[in-house]
């Protein structure tokens, strides 16, 4: 149940650590696994408390950037066509560009298998496991 102001973990190596949902693209309901959202980068990976140092040089996105993202995990249960249900312990997403290609080059962590049905095979192939 991702909606306006929801904070999500970003699990790719694009440089974002925590993003905030600003819009669910293409629908008026809350978003779930496989849905596209517009997200604002709230926290950068590798950024220290003092400010953005040299560590953030490799980051493709920085704090305040507005990017599109695909939700890959939700705390809300998602039901599959066969009646089984999956639920994760956190909300997580992967940043993509406008064309739908992932910004990062790797995904750290499990992603939902709903991405296959939603045709996000690029993210699926980057993920170490799917559940």
């Amino acid at each position: 149940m991702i909606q306006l102001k929801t904070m999500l973990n970003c699990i790719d190596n694009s440089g974002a650590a925590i993003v905030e949902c600003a819009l669910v693209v293409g629908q008026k309901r809350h978003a779930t696994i496989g849905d596209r959202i517009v997200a604002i980068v709230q926290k950068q990976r590798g950024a220290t408390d003092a400010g953005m140092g040299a560590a953030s040089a490799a980051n493709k996105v920085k704090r305040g950037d507005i990017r599109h993202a695909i939700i890959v995990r939700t705390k809300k249960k998602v039901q599959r066509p066969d009646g089984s249900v999956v639920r994760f312990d956190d909300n997580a997403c992967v940043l993509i560009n406008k064309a739908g290609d992932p910004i990062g080059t790797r995904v750290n962590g499990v992603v939902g298998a709903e991405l296959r049905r939603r045709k996000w095979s690029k993210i699926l192939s980057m993920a170490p496991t799917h559940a």
Partner: protein
Amino acid sequence: MIIQSARHPLGSWKAVLRRAQQQQQFLLRTMATATTTTITNTSIPPPPPPSSKPKSGWVKSKKVKFHVIKSTVPGKPIRTAFAVYPRGHSARAINPEALKTFHAQQIKRLDKTGARTALFSKANPDAAKPGDVLQVTTNRGGEPFAGVCLSIRRAGVDTAILLRNQLTKIGVEMWYKVYSPTVTGIEIIWRRPKRARRARLTYMRKPKHDMGNVDHLVEAWRRTRNVFTSGKGAKAGQHLGRPGKHAKGKRGR
């Protein structure tokens, strides 16, 4: 209506059509109740008699009675236009446990050997219980999902189990329907040495009680199973077997 039609030229058409429909209905109504002698324009037609009647025990001479009210003339009550039909038999009287029978029939259809029922039966001392580590194999491909059983939702053919595991340090919970045709196998990987004193182990979501990843248990189970299959008896110590080594050690203290 005239004002309306002036504003919306099509509105008047709609009104005309509606009126025509109403008239048609009214005509039908009068025809349907034409057999009854006492009829007024404002009478509401009696509800249609139930079309499906049970075969036996049902009143054959289903006579339509009319509601009667008292009149001022003694001995001559007024018969109204309201028909009173005898009450239909309830389905419960014919089949008092319809839902139970349905569940039993569906379980029989989906679980022909009765293994799944036994695996989660309360009567079976070797049944899987909350706190045990179970592995579910599906015919959807992909890896079988193993996890600690947090709860068993007993609901006839809809009986389901909740498994929890940690994949890449993220907690993942899966509900599986026990009798689902997509679930090809459910195996007990590890038995909790001591019986859980709760039916729903939701506290195991907390970091303090979380089991974490159960892959090491799955690995150990696979190794023991390989020993058995390569050895003489493939049937021993498998999925309905007794507690593993771990449990024995605890019990013998």
